[in-house]
């Protein structure tokens, strides 16, 4: 094709595009907004995609969830399993079960592609929360929660909690033996709340265990209440991110006031779409090839039966592990009692989460840094915060492992008493050791490595639109610049003194012809 033909074709395309955007503009006045959307830049670091992986899993969850909801029957009514057509799961024939359980058996065996949708839904949930944990850790270790992004940190933590509960209510909907056992434990934990515990459980369950209305209410919570909250919070999360623009690591040509990365259109849109496809691919491969939650083997829930190996899904493992490891304290006096499950089930998570919610402000106090930031820290730049994060990751990992004490003991051929006692000590010692190791490692890395803002590298000059000449890696002073005193905890480079810097690496900012 000759260049003239190419030019004519390009003009035709431009006219067609213009027709489209003009039509919208005449109704919404949207041209400026759309331009900002199309031109927007997203930084390219791979770790910024993990939040996206979480969102893509959520999309799979919603789509497969709607499909499942069309077949699921949210009813506790007792029926006898005796299908007269389709595939019959013989070991359940003649047994009494709830309609909910029966509908899940029906989905698994009688609905074409029902089982893969069910499994995709469940695998997506597990992957969703893995991505959430990783994303949360990334935000923490890079200091992305600092001003002006504290609100998003709070929203993110709320999302984590609601999503975990959404997962719990979701896998409890089949009313099978394993999830019903989990519900029994939750009943006891809520019942143990001082003063109002028994009122709460009688209200939520509709009476003394097992109550009369749990499955239909779980359905409402899982299909309406929590999804509304999740979608609302996620929308706020993304809108704030969009408005404030994404943070980025310090690097060549990057300052507090600019942003470097790919344009949304066409680069990032296609990459994001491609990532969504890959997330779906992984979820459906797992859904097809690895069995998850075979409720037909567990059987319908009865309050008087239980299966060994009774654990919640992995993302609630830390709470189950805390309950298993907690000493047998109970406080009784004057006819009243604070029962044991209250402490590891509500008090401990409350304290841990309280610290996490408050962290942006704790961080401000520790580093005496009340400024806003668009550039991230590298974990080594903030040894104390990284140490606390390492301790938290260690604590959560140990507690999650503690959820499987029986399985660990069985596979290591050790008594479970030994495992529990060992973990009891490890959850105290482990985080402390992790903190020390991480702290020292950060300090050492700072000694060895050149911080991107510390070592200016001359040689490459570029001219900016406001007329100045700058060297890549040069220290660029703003008009109200002020370098703060270094805090005693971070001897080498706080990495954040409110000024913009480039990197010491000699890779230049992009210029034409590269």
């Amino acid at each position, binding site marked *: 094709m000759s260049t003239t033909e190419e030019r004519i074709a390009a003009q035709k395309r431009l006219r067609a595009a213009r027709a489209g955007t003009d039509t919208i503009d005449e109704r919404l006045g949207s041209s400026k907004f759309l331009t900002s959307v199309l031109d927007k*830049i997203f930084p390219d670091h791979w770790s910024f995609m993990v939040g996206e992986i979480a969102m893509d899993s959520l999309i799979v969850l919603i789509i497969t969830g709607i499909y499942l909801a069309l077949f699921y029957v949210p009813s506790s009514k007792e029926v006898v399993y005796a299908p007269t057509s389709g595939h019959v799961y013989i070991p359940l024939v003649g047994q009494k079960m709830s309609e909910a359980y029966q509908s899940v058996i029906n989905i698994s065996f009688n609905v*074409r592609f029902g089982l893969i949708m069910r499994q995709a839904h469940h695998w997506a949930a597990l992957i969703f929360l893995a991505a959430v944990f990783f994303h949360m850790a990334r935000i923490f270790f890079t200091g992305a929660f600092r001003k002006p992004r504290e609100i998003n940190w709070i929203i993110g933590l709320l999302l984590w909690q609601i999503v975990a509960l959404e997962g719990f209510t979701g896998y409890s909907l089949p009313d099978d033996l394993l999830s019903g056992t989990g519900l029994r434990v939750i009943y006891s934990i809520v019942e143990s709340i001082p003063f109002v515990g028994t009122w709460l459980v009688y209200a939520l369950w509709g009476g003394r265990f097992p109550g009369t209305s749990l499955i239909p209410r779980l359905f409402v919570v899982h299909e309406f209440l929590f999804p509304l909250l999740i979608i609302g919070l996620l929308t706020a999360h993304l809108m704030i991110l969009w408005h404030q623009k994404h943070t980025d690591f310090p690097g060549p040509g990057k300052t507090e006031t600019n942003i470097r990365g790919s344009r949304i259109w066409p680069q990032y849109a296609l990459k994001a779409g491609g990532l969504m496809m890959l997330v779906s691919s992984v979820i459906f491969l797992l859904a097809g090839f690895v069995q998850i939650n075979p409720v037909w083997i567990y059987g319908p829930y009865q309050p008087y039966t239980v299966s060994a190996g*009774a654990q919640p899904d992995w993302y609630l493992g830390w709470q189950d592990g805390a309950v298993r490891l907690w000493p047998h304290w109970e406080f009784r006096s004057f006819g*009243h009692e604070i029962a044991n499950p209250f402490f590891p089930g509500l008090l401990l998570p409350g304290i841990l989460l309280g610290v996490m919610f408050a962290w942006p402000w704790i961080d401000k106090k520790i580093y005496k840094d009340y400024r806003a930031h*668009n550039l991230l820290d590298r974990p080594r730049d903030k040894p104390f915060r990284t140490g606390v994060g390492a301790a938290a990751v260690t604590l959560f990992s140990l507690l999650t492992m503690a959820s499987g004490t029986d399985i660990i003991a069985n596979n290591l051929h050790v008594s479970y008493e030994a495992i529990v006692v060992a973990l009891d000590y490890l959850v105290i010692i482990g985080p402390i050791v992790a903190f020390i190791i991480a702290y020292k490692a950060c300090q050492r890395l700072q000694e060895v490595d050149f911080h991107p803002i510390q070592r200016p590298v001359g040689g490459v000059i570029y001219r900016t639109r406001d007329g100045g000449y700058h060297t890549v890696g040069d220290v660029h002073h703003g008009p109200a610049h002020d370098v703060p005193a270094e805090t005693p905890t971070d001897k080498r480079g706080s990495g954040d003194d409110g000024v913009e810097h480039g990197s010491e690496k000699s890779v230049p900012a992009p210029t034409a012809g590269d």
Partner: protein
Amino acid sequence: MTDTLDEKQTPFARNPRHFGIDPDEPWPDDVPMDQDDTRWRYQGDPKGAKKAERRIAAAWTVTLLASIGLAAVYVDGANTQLAGLCWGLAFGGLGVGLILWARDLLPGHDVIASRGHHNVSSEADRIAVAESLGRGLDPIARRPFLIKMLGAVGGVFGLAIAFPIASLGPRPHRNLYQTAWGKGVRAVTQDGTPIRPSELPVNGILTVFPETNPADALSPTLLINLGDADYETPPQRVGWNIPIDGKTGIVAISKICTHAGCPASLYNVVTHQLVCPCHYSTFDVLRLSEPIFGPASRGLPQLPIAVDAQGFIVAQADYSRAGGGPVGPGFWNRG
């Protein structure tokens, strides 16, 4: 005005070091003058571009074949593994193709742009919003009585609105402390058959329910034949077991764990211990089923049992405080 105040004393005051730029100063345009975001990877390399195109086409061919395969899988029995393979390949091919297209053939890489603005309003705008708020707040503040009354009324009204929540369930009930066992209630198995003591062998364990209401969730009870093991019997529990050959014989222990309510029914006949599989509390049956390991802190309650005129095992009474009851996990008013 605000510059004289210490930053920490006025947390809402303007931070002059916001991103290092004073909000009244113009936003720097530190963007390289010459950058070209129309570049793409194989620009000037038509052979490379063609190869890239072929790679993408290959990926999308996988998607095409997998999608057709999916239809065939559905029609032919809808095998889960084949469906997962087809879906996985279809999504995967599509995704790989899109990403390769973006990476190799499309522009928009590696551009620097200004963040645009301070994300903080100018002083004038901040004053304006405070004044707009003040337009309402000032006259409202002139009526302290109304404010106080609104607070009080709002509290009461809030409680009133919450009343429908009370319909969600009954008030905590005496049935928290009771099970369906009582004097003369026969113990039956899962299929409704009553039990004679001779049917339970030494070291045997059996789950039984009250005949009158087998579905009651706190009533499931374990009958354990301890044989001649030395069962510690405090004065208030004398006669609660069914002796066999003058030895301890059969005792009835609640199956509902006192920690979080799971059935604590893993029985170790060597050590005469009941273990709960949820959080691994271990109960020593011979010592009033007191917990010796794990998070439980109260023993499993014991049910007093006897033999009725027809020779079947019956309860003498419901679980009581003397037996370590009420059954199940603890709560505030347990007493």
